[in-house]
């Protein structure tokens, strides 16, 4: 009886990948850290709202048929004159702020995640090449990276968007051009240390091709740093996009993001309609705060050198 039970437990803890994850130190620390749990709930809910939000919003803010001018200038529901239907109030065209925020967050999150994806891809490839190849190529690439890093990324973004013109694709290109540097530097640094390890020498001796060595042995070693950096980058990309859109240099008018909603609201701020710009901004803070908190946790966990 006892024997059987023991066998069962041993068998059940056989290392399926998921199981291993749930019993890892990482997962234990995650459960024990309130900030990590709260921040991941924040991120998850923002993503879910963006994905399924349009099914529950009271109004499609961009179909003109749904707008009614008599609903304009409604304050949030808890203030006198507000209606429960428009929880965060309406703007000067009778557009429900909450619906606008949910639709806007879709574009903002999309730009954040996709932008980081492209920046990371570019940066990783460039960094791997620089670190692995070394020599002239490396010094040229790193020199470019240094020069670019000595300029604030906000300024570079402004400049790029000025020349590209507003569109979602252009924002993504600009973010990629800004973001690759940090990835390239980290990946190159890690590649340099990995390159000197014995097992890489061994793979070379066996006669593995360079590409195989890079992808099978070097890349997995740099991934943790990339993950940590990416988390923080998503937040900062969302902020950069919001700022660009606020200045009228980001996404086009037909696809308003959270930043652009703020900018629209700024126009009516002085006439007392604070809620039009306040809530979209607050939602940006909510998303980015969640991401940054989680990034902080990840960095402490995955980067033992910083512990």
């Amino acid at each position, binding site marked *: 009886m006892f024997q059987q039970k023991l066998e069962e437990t041993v068998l059940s803890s056989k290392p399926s990948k998921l199981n291993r994850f749930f019993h890892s130190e990482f997962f234990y620390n995650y459960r024990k850290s309130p900030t990590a749990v709260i921040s991941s709930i924040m991120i998850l809910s923002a993503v879910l709202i963006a994905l399924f939000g349009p099914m529950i919003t009271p109004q499609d803010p961009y179909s003109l048929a749904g707008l009614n001018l008599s609903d304009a200038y409604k304050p949030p529901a808890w203030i006198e004159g507000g209606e429960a239907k428009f929880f965060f109030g309406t703007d000067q065209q009778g557009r429900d702020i909450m619906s606008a925020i949910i639709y806007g967050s879709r574009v903002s999150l999309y730009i954040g995640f996709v932008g980081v994806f492209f920046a990371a891809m570019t940066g990783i490839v460039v960094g791997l090449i620089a670190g692995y190849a070394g020599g002239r190529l490396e010094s040229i690439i790193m020199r470019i990276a240094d*020069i670019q890093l*000595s*300029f*604030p990324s*906000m*300024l570079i973004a*402004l*400049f*790029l968007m*000025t*020349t590209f*013109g507003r569109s979602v694709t252009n924002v993504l290109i600009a973010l990629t051009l800004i973001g690759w540097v940090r990835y390239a530097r980290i990946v190159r640094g890690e590649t340099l240390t990995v390159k000197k390890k014995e097992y890489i020498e061994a793979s070379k001796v066996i006669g593995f091709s360079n590409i195989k060595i890079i992808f099978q042995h070097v890349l997995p070693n740099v991934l943790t740093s990339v993950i940590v950096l990416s988390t923080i980058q998503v*937040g900062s990309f969302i*902020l950069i996009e*919001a*700022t660009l859109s*606020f*200045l*009228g*240099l980001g996404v086009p008018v037909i696809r308003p993001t959270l*930043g652009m909603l*703020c*900018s629209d*609201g*700024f126009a009516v*701020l*002085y006439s*007392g309609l*604070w809620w039009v*710009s*306040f809530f979209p*901004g*607050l939602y*940006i*803070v909510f998303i*980015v*705060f969640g*991401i*940054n*908190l989680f990034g*902080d946790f990840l960095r402490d966990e995955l980067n033992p050198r*910083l512990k």
Partner: protein
Amino acid sequence: MIIVLLVVSFIVFFMTSVIGNPVHTMLPERASQEQVDQVVKMLGLDKPLHVQYLIFLRNALKGDFGRSYTHFQPALKLIFSRFPATLEIVVVAMIMTIVFGITFGVYAGAYPRSRISKGIMGLSIAGISLPSFWVGMVLIFFLSVRLGWFPVSGRGTVGSLLGIRTSLATLDGWRHIILPSITLAGINVATIIRLVRAGMLETMRQDYIKFAKAKGVSSRDVLFKHALKNILIPVVTIFGLQLGELIAFTTITETIYAWPGMGKLLIDAINNLDRPIVSAYLLFVAVLFVVINFVVDILYTMIDPRVDL
């Protein structure tokens, strides 16, 4: 350094010549083809690109970026005339950053386990998550529009202090400058706190700190005399970078507060396709950054005699 500036001038020139044709914004809509040609010729836009670049470079060296298409004044002169206003908020924001950033950062790094430190760190994460334009709007609405403590926008009275014309010389000027500077400093304080704290954590583990403590040096002296000195190098580097960041972010702050600095000039110029101002601004800022980096390098040798240039 010179190579950096050359590269920047090259990029700036080619990118700004793609921006869009300024001729159409300068002429009335029904201008004849002849008039268009005339303007194109006047601006030198009919020459091949590389010739245009060489002309641009030669003029840039003389400080001539052409006349603004909208203000009808030399672009560089416009920038210089707006620069003091920008410098004012940058300096005030920088001082705020130094005072709060270092104090809180040192504290959070020296006593990482205390509750206050955890609070500081939580706030600093919140700080880097705030969009600065939103902070500006919230401050304007609640402190200026609702409570009326501060003016809504603009620069206020400009007085003269030691022969320099600045709004820091008048009380009204100070009332105008507080909100933009807080907005500008906000994010930077958060970043500085985090960096100072990281440096502090590293330093506090060193042997000489333990020795100083064992010797009975008061904890304030340990912190500010022994520990802080040794994290100054990374901190100075960061200040160099942050100064650039502050200048970049003035574009946003100045737009929100209608502050007549060069950041607002840039945004207006971008919206009007005012090419000379955009390129003059970018090269001016590039020169500024090169100078800042140079000063930072010199500061290194002053702080740490081991560093050789």
